[in-house]
């Protein structure tokens, strides 16, 4: 059976994780492909997966009634999509659409959370990475709000 461990280990979000933890995460992971224009998820959908992009680009969009979709961020290989694990119910707040053919690893959030509860060392390692990602996203959002070019 194909193991995802090497692919997981190579992704920057999971780099440096203990192989034992990678194996556990691998049990929650599956490879997914999205064609250009295809949605990874849409606003209000249940957030069942967390995506690690291996190839391609994903646009995070907000849909506005009169202007249509507005692209507020592009994510690409090495980055993660989805950061809504803290607030139940887990629903997406934005749309995410593949700009080009995109290959990713989909991590089943529910199953991953259960494993994190069972192994708190794994939970801590993942939350450290997750918190870092949130901090970066927060900084980016503030800079965008500040309108640097205004």
């Amino acid at each position, binding site marked *: 059976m194909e193991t995802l461990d090497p692919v997981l280990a190579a992704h920057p979000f999971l780099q440096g994780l203990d192989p034992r933890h990678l194996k556990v995460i691998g049990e929650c992971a599956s490879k997914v492909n999205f064609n250009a224009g295809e949605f990874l998820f849409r606003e209000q959908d249940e957030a069942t997966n967390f995506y690690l992009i291996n190839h391609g680009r994903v646009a995070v*969009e907000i849909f506005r009634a009169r202007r249509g979709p507005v*692209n507020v*961020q592009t994510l690409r290989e090495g980055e993660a999509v989805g950061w809504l694990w803290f607030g139940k119910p887990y629903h997406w707040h934005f749309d995410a659409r593949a700009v*080009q053919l995109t290959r990713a690893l989909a991590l089943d959030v529910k199953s991953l959370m259960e494993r994190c509860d069972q192994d708190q060392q794994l939970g801590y390692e993942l939350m450290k990475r997750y918190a870092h990602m949130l901090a970066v996203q927060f900084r980016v959002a503030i*800079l*965008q709000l500040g*309108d*640097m*070019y*205004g």
Partner: protein
Amino acid sequence: MLNQLTDPMLPTPYRVLKVGRETKDTFTLTLAPVQGGRGLSFAPGQFNMLYIFGVGEVPISISGDPDRTEKLVHTVRAVGAVSRAICGLKKGDTLGVRGPYGVPWPVKAAPGFDVLVIAGGLGLAPLRPAIYHLLNRRPEYGNLELIYGARTPEDLVYYRELSRWRGRFDFRVHGTVDAAKNDWRGNVGVVTNLVSRARFDPEQTMALVCGPGVMMRFTVQELVNRGLKLENIYVSLERNMKCGLGLCGHCQLGPFFVCKDGPVFPYDRVRDWFLMREV
């Protein structure tokens, strides 16, 4: 310029050869001396004082190729009375030019280095001559990358040239905008985020940064996080320059006159003043 040997405040008349629209409020003007001659020699990063007779004078960076001095190129955004008048000029109109002034980008000290050119908005205009210089002497430099950010795709200047540069195998170009419609296939995100994608050897890299103050501040932070030395980071500062000669004091920033001691500074030299909110 002969005029400036006799009176440095006396502008030389230039004629508009061409006006190109970059964005809704930004135009690139190609100029040549009314009296003919061999044009104006300048170094990348220098600026001229452009004078609209009867309206006023403003400092504008030179944005053309320093190796092709027969024509003078300026990119201007219409933001005030004078710049609006400049943007309203048509082919055949005349304006006055004084310059070039200021300390240029240190491209002549960069051979052997990787060079990162980082621009925000119209900050690409004063960096374009540096890019021309680097590309005209490409073998002398290591890895060469441009990181360019703007508010929206419609605000990107030199769009066709950016596409041409992207097609080169020896020059990596990263572009980003803060927001876009969903037909935009480029990157969306802040320009500082792209620094992490650049390839360079921190020990031997020179960064040339120009854009709004807040963009430069956060970009410098990212560069320092990537291990770049402060003395190898250069920023171009904007102040209210009037005389261009360091006489009037309008552009004073602490101990510096930006028109004469800058506008390009090594970051370690101006860091304290750059971060000081009161000046």
